[in-house]
């Protein structure tokens, strides 16, 4: 099997995973809207929680994967690791955009303000912007070796930056709801809502995987084509 066949196969499987995830997403939406009770104080606005939180999870997962793959790239110098890191960053930026648009839509009716400079909002915003920068940097660098090394450096620096920005804004002030699921004591969420949220998180993770596989295969195919063009000249 040639490299090209392998890439095409990954793309195809990525398509299957994405298709399954989209079906799951439809199921989660139906469950969230019809079968999960309306929250007592926030009303219908709380429904966005089932999109916002999983999207945030997907974005942070994607960006952490990019950071970890960046370390591995500098260690093993395998171009496929770099392509996977870049694919993950791109998917992370897309999820980040979902997170950053659904947040204010919820914030306006509940907080009375679209945006607040709270620790989590600020750190995710800057992380999002940094990874947009990461993608721009990749775009303006033409040499694949330099591109891979430079973007690995940004990936690693980004991983270290997040806790610092978080701490900075934490010292500044905070308003974002405190964690209700991932905290030392039991989740303070009715079971029916928790199940909806967790299935949404699972579906978004699957969606991430599907996107990642397709984007990775695309990157691989593009590189193969560039190589073929270069050797033909």
């Amino acid at each position, binding site marked *: 099997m040639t490299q090209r066949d392998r890439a095409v196969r990954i793309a195809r499987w990525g398509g299957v995973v994405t298709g399954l995830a989209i079906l799951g997403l439809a199921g989660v939406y139906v469950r969230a809207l019809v079968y999960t009770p309306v929250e007592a104080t926030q009303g219908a606005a709380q429904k966005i929680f089932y999109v916002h939180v999983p999207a945030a999870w997907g974005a942070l997962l994607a960006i952490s994967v990019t950071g970890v793959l960046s370390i591995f790239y*500098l260690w093993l110098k395998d171009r496929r690791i770099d392509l996977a890191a870049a694919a993950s960053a791109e998917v992370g930026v897309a999820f980040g955009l979902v997170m950053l648009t659904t947040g204010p839509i919820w914030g306006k009716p509940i907080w009375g303000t679209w945006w607040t400079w709270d620790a989590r909002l*600020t750190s995710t915003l*800057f*992380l999002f*912007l*940094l990874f947009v*920068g990461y993608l*721009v*940097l990749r775009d*303006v*660098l033409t040499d694949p070796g*330099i591109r891979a*090394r*430079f973007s*690995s*450096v*940004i990936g*690693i*620096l*980004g991983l*270290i*930056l997040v806790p*610092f*920005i978080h*701490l*900075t*804004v934490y*010292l*500044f002030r905070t308003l974002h709801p405190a964690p209700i699921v991932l905290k030392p004591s039991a989740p303070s969420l009715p079971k029916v809502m928790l199940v909806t949220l967790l299935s949404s998180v699972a579906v978004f993770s699957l969606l991430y995987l599907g996107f990642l596989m397709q984007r990775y295969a695309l990157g691989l195919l593009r590189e193969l084509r560039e190589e073929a063009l270069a050797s033909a000249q």
Partner: protein
Amino acid sequence: MRALLRAAWHIAVKDVAIEWRTKTAFASGLVFAVLVLAVLFFSRDPTAVASSDIAPGALWVTFTFAAMLGLNRAFLLERELHGLDGILLTPAPRAAIFWGKFAANLVFVGAIEAISLPLFVVFYDVPIWVRFGELVLVIAMATVAFVAVGTLLSAMAVRTRYAELMLPLLLLPFLVPPLVGGVQLTARLLEGRPLSDLSGWLKLIAAFDLAFVSLSATLFHVVVDE
């Protein structure tokens, strides 16, 4: 270790000497800093907000913008006539290039800050001498943070066609912790509050310095190696 320090020293002296002879970047950086200080003075409603209220923010925005302008200079200098290739061909260790550039950038940014600070006092009429020693310490700590990450990122940015655009895009997210910390600390120091009130912010900037100076020095060879 001594060889590394000596090589770094030579690179730093070379950079400072080039700047000293022309003073182009320094003069434009300084004028830019004065312009930012002056423009920010008008970025408020004078009947509602006192200039002393925005003074700490104005000072730090000026410092970050001026630093960003100066940081590209270190490697743009080497891009013309392929100076960096020349340095890479010498037996100087890669780390020496980082430390040399880092030191030269510190001198450059530090000099701009040293001249803008009195101008800041003139424009905004703030009592910086109340806690002058502590203020200098805070400025020094935050400047180390700017310059460490900036030296690494500018070495990358100059390799692109859009160096002047890429550096701010990549660097600004990293300036958030030292910038916010600098503003908070300066605001408190200008009110005459002791540093012990502010240990949280000081620790944050110190940790940032430690993490990013060592990380930038470690990752630098990845950026310059061919």
